[in-house]
């Protein structure tokens, strides 16, 4: 896990990249002035906001990230089609359930991404991550954390937990090297 940026003037390189793309998307143009101004903003804005963020682990494996994103995107499409069918289908056949997933991830950003992914993909919604800071004393060591999820139609609890851990949590651990 690495939380120290490589360049001082570019504290959050991926964020800057994202912003640069966003600027071009907003202007829908790749004219020089937009490139120039976009680059300027993509550097200055993170710099302005730098203090307004908690340090987060940096992405160590960009390519893997890309793969992860593509996979999630595909999952979203398929999962949503499933959910749509469930919604339109007979309600009585639904098997809703609450499931608790043990977490290996520790850090906020990966955790957030995981929870987000879980919410967007297979008929599940992240409900809570606990214990939280408030449950612990200031000096308590971080214990095992859990992700509580709600499943719309649960077939096999163990399989679901396994899927989540292998398909999403493991790549994230890889990406952030934590």
């Amino acid at each position, binding site marked *: 896990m690495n939380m120290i940026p490589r360049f001082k003037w570019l504290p959050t390189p991926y964020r800057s990249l994202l912003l640069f793309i*966003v600027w071009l*998307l*907003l202007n*829908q143009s790749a004219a020089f002035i937009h490139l120039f101004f976009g680059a300027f903003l993509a550097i200055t804005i993170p710099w302005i906001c730098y203090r307004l963020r908690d340090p987060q682990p940096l992405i160590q494996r960009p390519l893997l990230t890309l793969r992860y994103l593509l996979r999630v995107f595909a999952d*979203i*499409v398929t*999962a*949503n089609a499933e*959910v*749509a069918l*469930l*919604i*339109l289908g007979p*309600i009585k056949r*639904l*098997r*809703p*359930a*609450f*499931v*608790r997933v043990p977490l290996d991830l520790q850090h906020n950003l990966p955790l957030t991404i995981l*929870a*987000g*992914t*879980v*919410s*967007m993909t297979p*008929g599940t*919604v*992240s*409900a*809570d991550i*606990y*214990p*939280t800071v408030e*449950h*612990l*004393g200031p000096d308590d060591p971080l*214990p*095992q954390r*859990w992700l*509580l999820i*709600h499943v*719309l139609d*649960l077939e096999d*609890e163990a399989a679901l937990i396994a899927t989540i851990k292998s398909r999403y949590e493991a790549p994230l651990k890889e990406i952030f090297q934590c």
Partner: protein
Amino acid sequence: MQNWMEWAVAFFLLLGGCFVLIGSIGLVRMPDFFTRLHGPTKATTLGMGGILLGSIFYFSMSPETLSVHEMLITIFLLITAPVSAHMLIKTALHHRLKAVEHTQGEQELKRGQAFASKEGNRSETPEDQ
């Protein structure tokens, strides 16, 4: 080319419209809050993606313009929808909303509720129970 684009536009718009509608139907049809949450979070997001894609194609039909900024809305929704859902479900836990009767893992629900409110003991971890 034009015709192909038009078909694409029509396809994406209709697809998106359907998903949006299904999401909202889910909101109405589902028996409890927790199940209702799924429709809007997922189907609607995808539906929006469809409509925005339709829009992208539509505005890109004329040769000199390219419309891509709809991507931004999609990205934004993808980022925020899970958080909204998370906050909502936390609220539901806090308000001790009843899950529909045949929901499995009721114990997990109770535990979650206990953690959300102050009843969850400080030293209490799931292992202890």
